[in-house]
């Protein structure tokens, strides 16, 4: 059963990661790309979780904890950077 | 550099939280490890001084547990709703930016309310006006004025719940008065 789950989640995560990457590539503005990159990070964390649960080890647990603690810093930094600029019409 | 002395009682929740995190990260809750964690927590709290969070001094567990359960249920509903909207509505979704004035003027309560409503169905804090404690929310799937009213009511209800858990006496009295009226 666990092997089926592993395959199934791998497919789902790959599709999700592809979606996030498409948004990173296409995203009309910087903020869209940051948001999509955040989602991509969350997908990575989820994939690590599934790996740990299926193979019953805890090697990546600290990585997941670290992602959940400091993963938001990147988007906050970019958001501040974008918000600080004076508005230029038509461009982000 | 003048700093106000913070009482140990005011700092205690932070220290307890730090010790719990320490124990959890080591995956070891033996007394020795916890003691060392407590020493580190005190040292960290002294060295990396932050302005203390103003706590009201009351915390009601009887209200907190049901609130947490309801919150968890709402998180599930929120995810399902966003999933449904993403798949079915997609680009045709209607939104609104709504202003909600809160009763409380405590930073902690305003922050907690903002966090909770960011995580439950269809709302996200866009801007905060601290002087009037008004939250400006971006809400998903709002197509009529009735929806806006519902959202406002829900946010006020969540704030009332949080005040019951950890608000000050005055705010609690105001909420009770409102509920009985």
């Amino acid at each position, binding site marked *: *059963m*666990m092997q089926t*789950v592993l395959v*199934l*989640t791998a497919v789902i*995560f790959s599709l*999700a990661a592809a*979606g*996030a990457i498409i948004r990173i590539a296409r995203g009309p*503005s910087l*903020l869209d790309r940051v*948001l999509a990159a*955040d*989602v991509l990070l*969350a*997908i990575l964390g*989820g994939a690590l*979780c*599934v790996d*740990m*649960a299926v193979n019953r080890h*805890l090697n990546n*647990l600290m990585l997941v*904890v670290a992602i*959940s*603690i400091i*993963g*938001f810093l990147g*988007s906050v930094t970019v958001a501040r950077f974008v*918000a600080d600029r004076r*508005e230029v019409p038509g461009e982000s | 550099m003048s700093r106000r002395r913070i009482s140990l009682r005011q700092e205690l929740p932070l220290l307890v939280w730090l010790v719990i*995190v320490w124990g*959890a990260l080591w*995956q070891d809750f033996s007394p020795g490890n916890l003691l060392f964690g407590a020493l580190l927590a005190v040292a960290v709290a002294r060295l990396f001084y932050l302005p203390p969070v103003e706590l009201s001094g009351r915390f009601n567990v009887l209200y907190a547990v049901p609130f947490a359960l309801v919150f968890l249920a709402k*998180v599930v509903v929120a*995810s399902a709703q*966003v*999933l449904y909207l*993403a*798949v079915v509505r*997609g*680009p045709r979704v209607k*939104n609104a*930016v*709504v202003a909600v004035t809160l009763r409380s003027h405590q930073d902690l309560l305003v922050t907690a309310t*903002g966090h909770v409503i*960011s*995580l439950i169905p269809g709302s*996200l*804090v*866009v*801007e905060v*006006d601290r002087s009037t404690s008004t939250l*400006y929310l*971006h809400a*998903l799937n*709002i*197509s009529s*004025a009735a929806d*806006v009213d519902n959202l406002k009511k829900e946010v006020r209800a969540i704030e009332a719940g949080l005040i019951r858990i950890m608000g000050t006496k005055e705010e609690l009295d105001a909420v009770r008065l409102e509920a009985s009226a």
Partner: protein
Amino acid sequence: MSPDATGMDYWVDLVSAVFMVVGAVMSLGAAIGLLRFPDLLSRMHAATKPQVLGLFLLLAAIGLQMRTWWVWPVLVVAWIFQLLTVPVSAHMVGRAGYRTKHLHRELLTSDELEAVVQKAAAKTAREDDSGDGSKK
């Protein structure tokens, strides 16, 4: 699969398998939302909410699979930190997005912030005119 395939083990495996698949679907939902929603602020809903539930389910699956009590505190700590940080980044991105006009006005049924923002903008413009020119 497991060495002692008792009934209990089977059910725990089944529940954690369901959790894992649903958690993965949540990530997929976030990605679909990113692709299909029309503007930044609605995409942000898709990016934040399913993540929280997804991570919760996946962490619960780990806890069930490991079958030891001492992993649960770490998992709870990880989830609580995520609860604390996700709204922060969403709020910061949303604020920047609103200020840089990344939303489609025609999709909003009401906007109660716009008047406030315009008043504030007029005020700062007045201050800029009368005040110092050193502001960058």
